[in-house]
């Protein structure tokens, strides 16, 4: 999380799997944080939080200190996460209603929120709710509230779409979820800091900074100095 850290080119590994990306996110969540993990990939982050992290998970349907997904024997229809998956509760949990839950979020009380994305812009605009296709049925859920609410918003996504188009872009072409709300972007090929000062590459995975820069249509900066982990180093 130190913004003066040097860029590290990890040439010994990458592209990262979803689980490896989740592990990177988990590493950057401070001890004792209150965290909301978005539906889908971000939920993987929970599996990578270290023992004793004291991270408290929020689910926007009205709970703090949510536990892992319920095993078949634990399923309780009154206890689900925001993806409507049965979950469990941990000691010290609390329940509250939807207005209180989103007040907690909108009021900036969550330390970190982890979201998926279709696109993130160089300054941290987020597009993750609507493909923009004319016949698509719009559905936003809590995405816009999450995007603007947490103190830090981390995005997890592949860096390129299936058609090869980069998802980290100068300006989002998809309908926006929030303006300038993203702080960090974790992808299979690199991690980035985004914001008013533009885009900074923090780490690369399986590619060099120069290779990455060539594939993105962005004004990139690298974290000051470059340290390279060469291929073949035991990881």
């Amino acid at each position, binding site marked *: 999380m130190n913004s003066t850290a040097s860029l590290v080119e990890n040439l010994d590994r990458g592209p990262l799997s979803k689980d490896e990306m989740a592990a990177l996110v988990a590493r950057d969540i401070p001890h004792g944080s209150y965290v909301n993990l978005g539906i889908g990939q971000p939920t993987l982050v929970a599996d990578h939080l270290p023992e004793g992290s004291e991270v408290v998970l929020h*689910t*926007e*349907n*009205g*709970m703090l200190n949510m536990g892992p997904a319920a095993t078949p024997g634990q399923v*309780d*229809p*009154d*206890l*689900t*996460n925001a993806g*409507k998956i049965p979950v469990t*509760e941990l000691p010290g949990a609390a*329940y*509250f*209603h*939807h*207005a209180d*839950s*989103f*007040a907690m*979020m*909108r009021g900036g009380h969550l330390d970190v929120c982890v979201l998926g994305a279709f696109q993130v812009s160089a300054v941290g*605009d987020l597009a993750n709710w*609507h493909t923009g296709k004319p*016949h*698509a*049925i*719009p*559905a*936003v*859920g*809590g*995405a*816009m*509230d999450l995007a*603007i*609410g947490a103190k830090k918003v981390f995005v997890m996504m592949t860096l390129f779409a299936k058609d090869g188009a980069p998802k980290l872009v100068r300006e989002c072409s998809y*309908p*926006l*979820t*929030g*303006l300038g709300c993203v702080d960090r972007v974790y992808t299979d090929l690199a991690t980035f800091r985004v914001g008013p000062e533009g885009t900074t590459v923090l780490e690369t995975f399986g590619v060099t900074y120069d290779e990455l820069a060539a594939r993105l249509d962005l004004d990139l900066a690298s974290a000051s100095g470059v340290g390279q982990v060469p291929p073949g180093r035991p990881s």
Partner: protein
Amino acid sequence: MTVQVCADADEAVAGIRDGSTVLVGGFGMAGMPVELIDALIRQGASDLTVVSNNAGNGDTGLAALLAKGRVRRIVCSFPRQSDSWVFDQLYREGRIELEVVPQGTLAERMRAAGAGIGAFFSPTGVGTPLAEGKETREIGGRTYVLEHPIKGDVALIGAHIADRMGNLVYRKTARNFGPVMATAATTVVAQVREIVETGAIDPEVVVTPSIYVDRVVRAGVAA
């Protein structure tokens, strides 16, 4: 006024008029007032505006109400789901109006209706298509969009236990929209799993005080 303890769900939804705005609780199945929705289908009110987080799943409950053509307009945060085929078809055929509202704004707009707030400036949705055409204002260096209350004629909610005065408690994440909707509608109908004597609920743990509740009915429990 004194709560009406109803004999069945049909009595609980009696009198809902055509053209009403109906707030429907629940998030997924948790807190969903299934028996009240089924009774509303039997009751027959049409031209309804439904305010709920989703737009129905499968072929039962809210989806069945939609399938009967009773709903003119739906206000929700997330209509599109893997099993929302009833809504999807009505929407594509132009037979239902849709207003998509961010989930927290949906809750806060109902809270505002219940709390007598005329409108509020929210940071959610600023710069997105859902704020288009809405008034914005910069306050303290941040941009906000003006949001207005959503008030219901009727709220149908699911809770865990009621006492005979109408105080309600919920269970786990089934609490969700119920307590907010209970403040935001003229007539509030709660289906509960159990009705206990007044005084049997600890006053410290009441979530929805009796003042908000007009009718309760025991439902949703296997006989």
